């Protein structure tokens, strides 16, 4: 695939992740998340970083916002034609950036605010399908953010450089997540960086999924095609499937993605619960994510941290007032919150859930 | 009196190969080597096994080490005696005069005449020297097995 040499290969990687949420929905500056992620530079190698921010487009919050990167101008023309055919394009503009010398060359970066014209059909499924089509069919184009009132910003570079490039400190959001990447090959493609997003889901992920092949083929059953071949993409689709389409809560999702061992299930005393856990494993066996991972998943209402079933990657959580912090290292929390009320290590497979409770 | 370990026969698994006899003879030979015992040693020991076969039913019988052993009663020299420590019925060839009353008395027919060096009686000693009966060890189909006083199976590996 021209200009996207990394695209066909899955990239196993180690990483640093962090997420900060104001559970009352009060926005705060991107400077905070920048300080947090930049305190874990050690966990990346300059080959990818990125940010997800919720609540950044309040004036256009009812429109789908696509962030798209292009390797070349003709791809842009093709995609814009596609968007015109399928959506009403309310507004579009280049994503504001600042020139950072270390980040050459950069792709063309553009954002579109879109309305699904033909009401009645399931809008979200339609958007998912459109993203799949553009990413799968248009050479050199990649939709890397597709939610409402949120956006993902990412690229190849250290988090401080990427943050400066996208002018992250100028945005205000109530959930921020960030990622610093240590891929084990040398990609030259910005789309391969994290966070990965679909609809208003964003995922930052540290890990390698040994069950990738199983999970990917399971997702194909439900119309999700992994075009990117990154582990993180699988994680995002699984969350979308289980939470949005199957209506499972996050605790149950934790029991699916990082299911308890049979020996643990057998020890559960309550019979109803034991039956439930067994049913989940029987049904969702192919959705079990095996291998080491720590992940922070967010959507407009939640920020959730989750570890694999034997906790092979670090994850720390802390709270102070309305703020929930989840990060790979405690240092990334302490640097922005000197005296948290509580700091803990979430257990293997037990989700740490932050829920938005907007005050009237 | 202590009950002896016993060999249990399970004729439903006896395939009639008679390897038990081959290994019994080897175990009681001078060389304890199968080829030497068969091809070199003269006289060859008598096997302690009485093999019986009719149609597809077959089994290999050894001395039962009876609680109430008629051979003990019949022996005129005390060559046939009960070993108190193990409960086994043993036979002392030195004291045996070869009257063979024990053979007459044995209801199982498992005491045999031995014409080797001199006329004596011969029977299974549960391979007392080897600690584990050779016939049991080498039965390819576990048709003869060793059990302890309680009837629990004893495996070679455990000895």
């Amino acid at each position, binding site marked *: 695939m021209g200009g996207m040499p990394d695209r066909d*290969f*899955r*990239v*196993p990687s180690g990483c640093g992740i962090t997420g900060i949420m104001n559970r009352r929905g009060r926005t705060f500056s991107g400077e905070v998340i920048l300080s947090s992620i930049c305190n874990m530079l050690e966990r990346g190698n300059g080959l990818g970083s990125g940010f997800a921010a919720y609540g950044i487009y309040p004036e256009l919050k009812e429109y789908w916002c696509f962030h798209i990167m292009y390797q070349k101008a003709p791809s842009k023309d093709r995609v814009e034609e596609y968007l015109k055919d399928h959506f009403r394009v309310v507004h579009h503009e280049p994503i504001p950036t600042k020139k950072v010398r270390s980040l050459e060359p950069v792709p063309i970066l553009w954002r579109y605010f879109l309305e699904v014209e033909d009401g009645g059909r399931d809008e979200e499924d339609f958007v998912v399908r459109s993203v799949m089509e553009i990413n799968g069919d248009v050479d050199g184009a990649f939709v890397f953010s597709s939610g409402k009132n949120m956006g993902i910003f990412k690229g190849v570079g250290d988090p401080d450089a990427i943050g400066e490039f996208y002018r992250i400190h100028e945005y205000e959001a109530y959930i921020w997540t960030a990622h610093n990447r240590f891929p*084990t*090959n040398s990609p030259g493609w910005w789309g391969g960086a994290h966070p990965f997003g679909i609809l208003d889901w964003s995922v930052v992920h540290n890990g*390698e999924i*040994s*069950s*990738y*092949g*199983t999970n990917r*083929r*399971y997702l*194909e*059953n439900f119309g999700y095609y992994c075009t990117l*071949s990154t582990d993180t993409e699988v994680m995002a689709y699984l969350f979308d499937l289980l939470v949005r389409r*199957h209506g*499972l*809560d996050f605790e*149950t999702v934790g029991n699916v993605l990082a*299911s308890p*061992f049979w020996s643990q299930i057998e020890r559960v005393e309550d019979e109803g*619960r034991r039956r*439930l856990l*067994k*049913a*989940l494993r*029987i*049904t*969702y*066996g*192919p959705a*079990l*994510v*095996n*291998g*080491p991972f720590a992940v922070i998943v967010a959507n407009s209402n939640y920020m959730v941290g989750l570890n694999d*079933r*034997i906790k*092979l990657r670090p994850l720390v959580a802390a709270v102070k007032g309305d703020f929930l912090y989840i990060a790979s290292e405690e240092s990334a929390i302490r640097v922005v919150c000197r005296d948290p009320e509580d700091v803990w290590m979430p257990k293997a497979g037990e989700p740490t859930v932050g829920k938005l409770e907007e005050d009237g | 009196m202590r009950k002896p370990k016993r060999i249990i026969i399970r004729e*439903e*698994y*006896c*395939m*009639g*190969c*008679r*390897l038990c*006899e*081959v290994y019994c003879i080897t175990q009681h030979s001078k060389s304890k080597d*199968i*080829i030497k015992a*068969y*091809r070199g040693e003269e006289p060859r020991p008598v096997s302690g096994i009485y093999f019986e076969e009719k149609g*597809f039913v077959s089994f290999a019988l050894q001395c039962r080490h009876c609680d109430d052993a008629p051979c003990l009663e019949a022996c005129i020299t005390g060559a046939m005696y009960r070993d108190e420590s193990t409960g086994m019925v043993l036979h002392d060839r030195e004291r045996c005069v070869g009257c063979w009353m024990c053979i007459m008395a044995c209801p199982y027919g498992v005491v045999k005449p031995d014409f080797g060096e001199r006329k004596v009686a011969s029977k299974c000693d549960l391979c007392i020297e080897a600690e584990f009966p050779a016939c049991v060890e*080498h039965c390819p*189909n*576990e*048709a003869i097995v060793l059990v302890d006083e309680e009837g629990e199976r004893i495996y070679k590996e455990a000895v």
Partner: protein
Amino acid sequence: MAKAKYRPEFIVQRDDEKCIRCQVCVRMCSNDVHAYYPDTVISDSFKCVGCHFCEDLCPTGAIAIRRSEPHIKENYHWSGTDVYNIIKQADTGGVLLTGMGCDRPYKDYFGHIVLNASQVTNPSIDPLREPMELRTFIGGKPEVVIIGKSSEPELRTQIPPQLELETPIMFSAMSYGSISLNACKSLAKAACDFGTCWNTGEGGLHRDLSPYAHRAIVQVASGRFGVNKEYLDAGCAVEIKIGQGAKPGIGGHLPGEKVPEEVSRTRMIPEGTDALSPAPHHDIYSIEDLKQLIFALKEATRYEKPVGVKIAAVHNVAPIASGIVRAGADFVVIDGIRGGTGAAPTLIRNNVGIPIELAIAVVDSRLREEGIRNRASIIAAGGFRSSADVVKAIALGADAVYIGTAALIALGCHLCQRCYTGKCNWGIATQDPYLTKRLNPEIGARRAYNLLRAWSLEIKEMLGGMGINAIESLRGNREQLRGVGLNEVELELLGIKHAGEAW
């Protein structure tokens, strides 16, 4: 014309220095190869089938069974087997018969697939120190679990009946009749002890096997032998047998010699009559007929047990499997060309069907494409030789495998391929009371159990190496496989990359 003589397939070599004339070989050979002649033992190599029973029993190692050298002039096109098969057929005018699976040198795909392991980016897991789960469920799975949200989360989804296995390995269908009751008992007990399943084949359920019925998959095949209400009620699952890898398109034939009283009772046929299973089920001439039988059996078992269908892997296996799943089967068994049998026409066995590796891959992919993979489990069968074959089959997409030949080898079989003669020296493929007692089911069960245990441990080691601690994460995980020396079409059909390609 002068009549051609057959040539022996084997040479029985006796080292006279070692032979102690114990005559164990003479007593044991059911083919009367050995005879005691005043103070010597002579052996007739013509009669030897190469089962190695005498060789294994000989206490001094005096006997060696060797392959006979080629006895016709070397010819690339005409092998000795070809020539002597023709001579034999010119003599008899009959169909060539054989036993066990296809032995022709078709490409061994398992032998051209390698597995992955973790290095650095992902820790491998030591199964001796950490949990490693092989528990497997066979049966249809719902697409989604619905949870009621009153006070406590409550399961609202009805999970269809499942077989719960402690290892993804089961014993495949081998009927009482084709194999001895002691062989059935050995496998049945091993399956129960280990927590997996065995399969009655089309032989009914002998009363001595009823203690093991709770882990028996009961088969319903075209002859309907032994099928009645108690039989269906006794098993843990029902399998409709349409075909078998060793002889796709062919029915079964148990010769009258293998139908003594006990077999006749169990099969519910007269003693000494040939038990003929028709090639097709005469009430199934189409997929909708199959659907009726599936649901008739589900009705009969009150929807409490999985009902599956076994087919031979043939060219159209993927669409056929899809039809079977849509017809309501809870599991589909695919039996590849290497699948074994007690008796089959040699040419059918050797030339009909496709390799199981390709069949698993195309069936799994097809069911996924159609979005119905969760509705049924895939059980693969046909020539699994080791735990590595099992791991590869599961990674290609099978839920579990059936082993038949490997299980019989654990019981003593040396693959002489003469099962159809009923003279099996090892007491497996025979009903002759002189021979059946040679297989002590206690030993058989122990050995079959050991095989399950050993393979399961090896599977755990391989999973741990990949950084996976539950078998469900291997299922369909073709990313863990790479081809070596396979061409593009083969790689595409198998859905795997070539070795050297990264993720």
